[in-house]
Structures are given as structure tokens and as C-alpha cells.
């Protein structure tokens, strides 16, 4: 029985630049999906935006009503939901499902929409004749391409992809990620890529926001985050990530478990698992501050403890 309110996203600030891929990384429950749903104003029943602004094209989306958002959704910002590839309607042809959005949003005729669907399929690497197939006739990777085609149906400028490759085999994963990068270049898209998989982020994103318990722990460009991070959580996460490259050795793991969002830790939410926590960390929420051009951290002692996790013995 769910009791109490969970502040899924607390005081999150970031900017998305045109043509870039921003990664929202973090573990389950950190608020990355909720952030994305908030941007689209598609929160589940019981979820509300308490305060804040979402500025897009000069307008504040947070203040828009549902009917006003209809003009934004899919046409300006679209989203590929987590696991959507498995949620295709099995009794409808794939083409129909894609044209549905086009017909509704752009008032197109059926044949115009179908024409557009065919070209979208070509764009995502599917044979255009496949618009008349049913979902079960596609493999996993192909279904995800269909979802991408759907997301691009109305020419949005921003695409949010929530765990787009998690359920796919490694070989297919590479292809889909490459496709996304390709499309981004061709169509000058801005992409928000949400995932818990740090290796995927490293391969595809320009900038990354590492989220923890509803807040952003660190935000910066991808090389800095992976090689020269400022936040102990980021460091810990990156050093404790098994990889097939690099040295084979034992990693030091982060102690403890991710927090319960209905009663998050006081002060810095990471303090319960941080080896360097002290009174300040326990009582004061760290400021989300700018430590170098385009790089923000929320930690009281970044300067002092940088690099310490990497150097620690397991």
C-alpha cells in the first residue's frame, strides 16, 4: 500500500542544446524517467509537477494545459517509451499504428500519411513494404526501429529515448544506437537518452547528467564525467562498472542501497553511502554549483575528495 508522497524529481535543472545528445543516467528510482515524462506532461495518475519551468521555444511547458500540450507532443517533442517496442498493438498493422499519429496530429489524409510512413521506414533502415506487416513479424531490433519511426512521424526537434536498447542483444544494440546517432545528424535532432547503462552513455552522448534519488549529482560533458568527475557518486559508479576493456581487477563497490524516495536521506541524499560524509553532508542539501564551464556538481566537498574513489583499494 503506497503511503505518502515521493518526490521523484527534486530541483533538477539542465539545458538541452540543439543537435546534442544529453544522457540522463542513474539507477532505478533516481527520477530519470519521471523527468522525461514531466517534460512531456505525461505523468501517471497521482503525479503532479509541483513547481518549476520547462522552457521550450520561448514557452513554459509546465504551465500549459493538456490540450495546449497536444500541439507540442509529437510535433515538437516526442518520446520513445521504455519497453514500447513490446507494446505495439498486435492486431494492427504496423503502418496503421504509425499513420495514426500522423493523421491525428497533422490532419493528413490516409494516403498522405501512409506515404510518409513509408519514407519514415526507409529513414530508419526498414524496407518500406514492411508497413503492411504485423508486429509479430518483426524482430526486436526492427520493432524498435518502428518505434523510432513513430517518434519521428511529425518532425519533432527533440526526441526522448527511454532505455531504447536495454532489451536488445548487443549486436542489435550497436546498430540501433548508430541509427539514432545517424538520424540525429541528418535531422539535426536533440536527443535525451535515458538509461542506467553507463557504457551506452559513453558511446552515444555528448553531455551527461548523473541523477541520484531525484536530484542531479553531476552534469557535464561526457569525457569530463568519465575521466575527471567531481562527484563521489559519479566516480564510484564509473570505477565500479565491469568492462571488457581496461585492466582486469577487483573494483571497489559502493556500500548500501539506493534510497527510498518516500523518505529520502536528509541533507545530501548520497551521504548514507558516501565514505566521506560528515555533519554538513547530513544536514545541508548541497548546492548545485558551477565548477567549470558547463559543468555542475552538487557536493559539499568536491574539490577535496575528487579522485579519491578511483585511488581507493577495493
Amino acid at each position, binding site marked *: 500500500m503506497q503511503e505518502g508522497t515521493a518526490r521523484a524529481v527534486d530541483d533538477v535543472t539542465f539545458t538541452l542544446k540543439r543537435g546534442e545528445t544529453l544522457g540522463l543516467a542513474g539507477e532505478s528510482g533516481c527520477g530519470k524517467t519521471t523527468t522525461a515524462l514531466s517534460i512531456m506532461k505525461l505523468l501517471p495518475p497521482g503525479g503532479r509537477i509541483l513547481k518549476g519551468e520547462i522552457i521550450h521555444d520561448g514557452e513554459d511547458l509546465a504551465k500549459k494545459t493538456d490540450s495546449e500540450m497536444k500541439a507540442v507532443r509529437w510535433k515538437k517533442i516526442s518520446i520513445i517509451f521504455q519497453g514500447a517496442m513490446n507494446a505495439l498493438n498486435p492486431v494492427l498493422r504496423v503502418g496503421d499504428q504509425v499513420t495514426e499519429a500522423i493523421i491525428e496530429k497533422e490532419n493528413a489524409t490516409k494516403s498522405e500519411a501512409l506515404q510518409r510512413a513509408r519514407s519514415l521506414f526507409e529513414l530508419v533502415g526498414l524496407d518500406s513494404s514492411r508497413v503492411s506487416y504485423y508486429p509479430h513479424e518483426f524482430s526486436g*531490433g526492427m520493432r524498435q526501429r518502428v518505434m523510432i519511426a513513430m517518434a519521428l512521424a511529425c518532425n519533432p526537434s527533440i526526441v526522448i529515448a527511454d532505455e531504447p536498447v536495454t532489451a536488445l542483444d548487443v*549486436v542489435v544494440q550497436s*546498430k540501433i544506437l548508430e541509427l539514432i546517432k545517424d538520424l540525429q545528424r541528418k535531422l539535426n535532432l536533440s536527443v535525451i537518452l535515458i538509461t542506467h547503462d553507463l557504457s551506452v552513455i559513453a558511446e552515444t552522448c555528448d553531455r551527461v547528467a548523473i541523477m541520484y534519488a531525484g536530484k542531479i549529482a553531476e552534469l557535464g560533458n561526457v569525457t569530463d564525467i568519465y*575521466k575527471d568527475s567531481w562527484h563521489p557518486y559519479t566516480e564510484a559508479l564509473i570505477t565500479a562498472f*565491469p568492462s*571488457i576493456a581496461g585492466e*582486469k581487477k577487483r573494483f571497489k563497490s559502493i556500500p548500501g*542501497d539506493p534510497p527510498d524516495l518516500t523518505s529520502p536521506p536528509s541533507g545530501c541524499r548520497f551521504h548514507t*553511502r558516501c565514505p566521506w560524509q560528515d555533519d554538513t553532508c547530513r544536514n545541508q542539501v548541497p548546492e548545485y554549483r558551477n565548477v567549470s564551464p558547463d559543468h555542475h556538481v552538487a557536493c559539499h566537498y568536491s574539490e577535496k575528495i575528487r579522485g579519491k574513489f578511483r585511488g581507493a583499494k577495493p
Partner: protein
Amino acid sequence: MDNLSVWFPARKGIASTFAGKQEWVHAVDDVSFSVRKGEVMCLAGESGSGKTTTARAVLGLIKAKSGIVRFEGNDILSLSKKELRKLRCKMQIIFQDPYESIDPRMSVLEILSEPLEVNKVARSRQEREERVYKALEDVRLLPPREFARRFPHELSGGQRQRVAIARALVLEPGLLVADEPVSMLDASIRVQILNLLLDLREEYDLTFLYITHDLAQARYIGNDIVIMYLGRIMESGPVEEIVSNPVHPYTKALISNVPVPDPTIKRDRIAVKGETPSALDMPSGCRFHPRCPYAEEICRTKEPELLRIGSARYSACHFNDRWIS
């Protein structure tokens, strides 16, 4: 405890009736490998590779159509149900889903006592409790009395998986089969659990059969690895060697496509066309041939054998010699 398990061809089929005619789905076909005592053997492969089925068959949880599984001098597949149950004490399994593999209606104490009760080990309640607490200590769920009283829904994913590991340990087995034990856990907890498994292996001289689709995990925890595809072994050998120097085209493609958590490393991807076909639609000859960039006529007609190409390495490709530089 003599734990040299030598496994010979194990061919499994799951019958699926097609319009009255019996057809077999070859989930696992002619797989052979052996695991050395105290080592971690990884069964790696993507979805549909048959790794899970192999592991289940090894434990006798699934019926094998043919083959031999040797464990401590016994052929597991030829034992009666009763004899198999007795052997269960020595081989245990940890499942993938920490939320589903422990009964939500039982307390941790009950969950951990159950194996002892069922196998009539540790007759007195006192003894059982002691073993339960010890198992909880082993998996670092401290204080053990506190955790013993809790129910699964009061535990986090990582803690639940520790309970699952404790349950596997409480019978003091020699062989542990782990089926993707960390895939459903958060990234920050995965290494915790992997390290725990490594510690336990050292402490109790356990032998692991570790199943995963994640080659990075396999590299972290494994000594040896077997790469499976559509029910057959493509390549096998020591993990580090295979990762740095793969021979089989499938292995090569797999390794090249695994993403790395380092944006400064740029890798050459070997593109592989298509996706893994379903086992109902098994390609002829070499199972990988429709997708292999180097496939030739012989690959379509003749299935390659698993041949030895090094001191402990095996590969199943018609052109093994080409790849060995």
C-alpha cells in the same frame, strides 16, 4: 570433495506439436564442456543461445533428451528422482529475479530454513537457526537476527538477492549455478554482489557455473568461458584470452559490439546482419552462417565441429586456421 564435473554431449529438446506431428525444438544441441573445481565457468550467449536451458539441465531441473552430466562421479541424468533429490544438496542455483525467486509470503528465516527442512539436514531447530544465521553472515546481511525476521517486501533488490545466495549456501554445496544473478540489480549494487560471489568462492572453494549475456560481467568474474549461439558452443576457453583475442567470427562480432564505459575509446564495430533467428527456424550447416560476414558454401551445408585450437581453447568454425594469427 571431488568436484571435477565433466560434461559430455547433452542434447535437449522441447517438444512442440505441430499439427499432430511431433517436432523438436533443439534448445541445446550437443554441448560439451567441463568445469574445474573451484573455478568460475561462464556460459555466455545472447537470448536464445540455450545457456539457461543448459544450466537447468545440468541441475536436472529440465529433462534432457540425451547426454551425460558427470558430477562427483555420478551421471546426474541417469539418477532416479529420489537419488537426484539427495544430490541437490551439493548443487544449488541462484536465479535472476530477486523479486520472484523468493516466496513473498515467507520470512527470511523460513526461506532459509526450508532447504534444511526439506533435506532433513540439521534436525533440531537450534541447529537450523545457527546455519541460517551463518548463511546470513556470509552474505553480509547483518545483524542476522534482524534480517531473519524480515519479509521480502521489506528488503531492497540487492538484499533479496543476498537472501537468494544465502539460501543457496545454507546446504553447503560444492557447485553453484548462477543464472544472470545481477542483471536485474542496479549498477551500483552489481559489483557488490559480484565481489560477494568471488569472496564466497574463495572462502568455501566453490565452483561456479555463471550464466550471463553480459561479456563484461563474464570477464569480471569468470576464469573460463563458453560462448553459445542457438544451442551450440561457438568458442570456449579462458576468459581473458577470448576477450582479447577472439577466434570465432561470432565471438569477434560480439566482443567488438560490446559498449565500453569510456568515451575516449573508439572501437571498430564488426557489423553483423540480421538478428538471432528463433530456434524453430534453425539455419542449416553452421548456425551462424546467415549472419557471418565470412560465410562460404561449406558453411551452409556442413556444421563445423568444436575443435581444439590451443592449450585450452576450442572453436567451431570451418576456417579456424584463418583466424589464428
